């Protein structure tokens, strides 16, 4: 057991699984000698060699496409896209091939690839380095999208993603990479995919969130607790497919729902959750569903960044509004 940051947890998960499973191969830009620009793969090339930890040429489409070819040959590629904003050249391979290979060959060829990348803003980065594009990927049938919010979940969910026989897009909130440490046992235990994680039990309102926004949400929940409001906080964790059942079960109990995400509002994953609760849990609701999200703008550069990202105040206000209905 050790107290590790999310980056360290991700690193340990790689090391564990690469030791246990010789078919796991890491590739990406600067992942080998440099250990990844955030050091997620630090030390792995020394430990496992250049064939298993590869510095690739600079081409995201090639990284995604080559991973597909390798996967059909029985390897388990864990490929890094350096920032989510650079995923666009890889979308052809992701959407046209990665998500579909099992389906279009009726199971003859499969694609056990993990494509991991930093997610979201709040680190004063230059343009194009702060994107939250999970909705684009969630809209692809055949693709899983996962986003941990703590070192422990990063460790356990990454192991699950690597072991899953189908492609997983693994989004790592950059703002959380080193924000806190947590006791994480390096024992190779995976955590389940496709389920929410209840981080806080409550009775007055259900708040569903994921990624870096978990931090602000938990802070908001504490503040509201002191005002006598009992919040139930669910970390969505797997953004696609969504574990609607846990959310609905919670809404039956609380009757109120607030969804918090950093990504822009329009057509964000919050809309999918809200629509499903409206379809299947309408009669349990006491108030309209509320979403607290990034604005429908491009995420601004660092000077305005923290005005864009939903803060604790916006979350607490939204909860109070649902209670006032």
């Amino acid at each position, binding site marked *: 057991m050790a*107290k590790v*940051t999310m*980056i360290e947890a991700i690193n340990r998960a790689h090391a564990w699984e690469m030791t246990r499973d010789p078919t796991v191969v890491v590739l990406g830009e*600067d992942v080998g000698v440099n250990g990844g*620009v*955030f*050091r997620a793969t630090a030390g792995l090339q020394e430990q496992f060699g250049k064939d298993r930890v590869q510095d690739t040429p600079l081409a995201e489409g090639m990284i995604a496409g080559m991973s597909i070819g390798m996967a059909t040959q029985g390897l388990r590629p864990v490929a890094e896209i350096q920032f989510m904003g650079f995923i666009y050249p890889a979308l052809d391979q992701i959407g046209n091939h990665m998500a579909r290979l099992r389906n279009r060959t009726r199971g003859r060829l499969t694609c056990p690839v993990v494509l991991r990348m930093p997610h979201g803003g*709040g*680190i*004063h*980065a*230059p343009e194009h*380095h702060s994107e939250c594009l999970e909705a684009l990927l969630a809209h692809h049938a055949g693709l899983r999208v996962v986003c941990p919010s*703590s*070192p*422990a*979940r990063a460790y356990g969910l990454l192991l699950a993603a690597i072991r899953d026989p189908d492609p997983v897009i693994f989004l790592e909130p*950059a*703002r959380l*990479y*080193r*924000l*806190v*440490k*947590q*006791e994480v046992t390096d024992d190779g235990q995976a*955590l*389940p995919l*496709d*389920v*929410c*994680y*209840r*981080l806080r039990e409550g009775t007055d309102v259900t708040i569903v969130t994921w990624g870096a926004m978990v931090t602000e949400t*938990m802070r908001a929940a504490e503040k509201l607790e002191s005002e006598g409001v009992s919040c139930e906080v*669910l*970390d969505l964790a797997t953004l696609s497919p969504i*574990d*609607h*059942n*846990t959310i*609905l*079960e919670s809404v*039956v*109990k609380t*009757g109120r729902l607030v969804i918090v995400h950093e990504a822009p509002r329009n057509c964000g994953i919050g809309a999918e959750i809200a629509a499903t609760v409206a379809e*299947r849990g*309408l*009669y*349990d*609701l*006491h108030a*309209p569903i509320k979403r607290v999200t990034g604005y429908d703008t491009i995420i601004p550069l*660092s000077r305005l960044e923290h005005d864009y990202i939903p803060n604790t105040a916006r979350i607490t206000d939204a909860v109070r509004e649902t209670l006032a209905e």
Partner: protein
Amino acid sequence: MTTFNLPDLGEGLAEAEIVRWHVKVGDTIAVDQPMLAVETAKAVVEVPAPFAGVVKLLHGQPGDVIATGAPLIELEGSSAAQIAGAAGPHGGTAAGRSKAAADSGTVVGNVPTSNDELIETAQAGGRARYAAAPGGRLRAAPAARALAKKLGVDLARVNGSGRGGVIVVDDVIAHSGIGTAAARSGATHPHASTTSATAQHAPSAPAFSDGGEKLRGLRRAMAQSMALARDTVANCTIFDDADLHAWREGEDITVRLLRAIAAGCQAEPALNALFDGNTQTRRLMPRVDVGMAVDTAEGLIVPAIRDVGSRTSAELRQDVDRLKRAARERTVAPDDLRDITFMLSNFGTIAGRYGTPLVVPPLVAILGSGRLTRDVVAVKDRIEAHLRMPLSLTFDHRCVTGGEAARFLAAVLRDLEKDH
């Protein structure tokens, strides 16, 4: 004079310890000239002067720990206002570029770093399947909730008539006593403006001076639905007696009645129908669901025995018992109170031979069965004492003919008079 704060020396480190000053108060220093050495968690780092100037004040001595962003040195110089700790290695000081600089752990921006520990509990979900709401929470349509709030209606006291017992707007209206009360089975549109002229106006002043007991719940529902029935249905009743001479010991009267109704409906489907007087449309129902009037302490309720034509006697008896028990305990589910196609009033278990039961729309018929008695009857030319059951069949003459009703009754009698 300008205060220079300890900059972020990379990796978002929280503090640094002063190792050694290279300058003293009064010195004139040039830009980039090393001012002091500080030790971070990783390395000893030189901090250069941000601009040229004269040293006015040092904010600490060797051994002191200075927090990132806290004042380090006061300089009197020509350029720049207060320089806060720069963000990130690319915007920072020469220290960030020195060989001894710690790994910033990023290639752009500034990843916030701290030693705070995250303590959390996380419970993986997905175990419980989503089922219909347990008894605890009220399920109500949003519009119903809003109306209830407006009218001051306590939702906990309202029976829901929507699917699965959901409380809908009409339930709130009915409960509040304002406006139209729709018939329970809901086959007609409760909003039809001509459904009931009687209940539209606001309640008038009571007839007795002390105000009396305001009808609520089942009694209120009965008052309203009977008024509706009286106002719209063309009630007509045929009476007859079933000769149960052939019955063996221990025949189940209720079950025989249910079976006989099924036989009657098979012979004359016109009596197992729903009729909407407003639109003058009739629907023959494919299945016979008999509402059995049950008297409870709170009033009359009519739970449904489903599909009496297809079920065995044992099944029917089970259902009857279940519903009677539920009625006593006031646990009849809303689903068991709706969608009936025919009504049975077995008042004879208490008293009364014949009656004129009222048809409740949108149904078109109701069979009343009276008290079984041993009657003197003429058989050929002999006098015998036979067990007989009086029957009173009321039908809605707007959409059922006398002939249909009579043939129905004939089939009921034939079935009842069988030995088993």
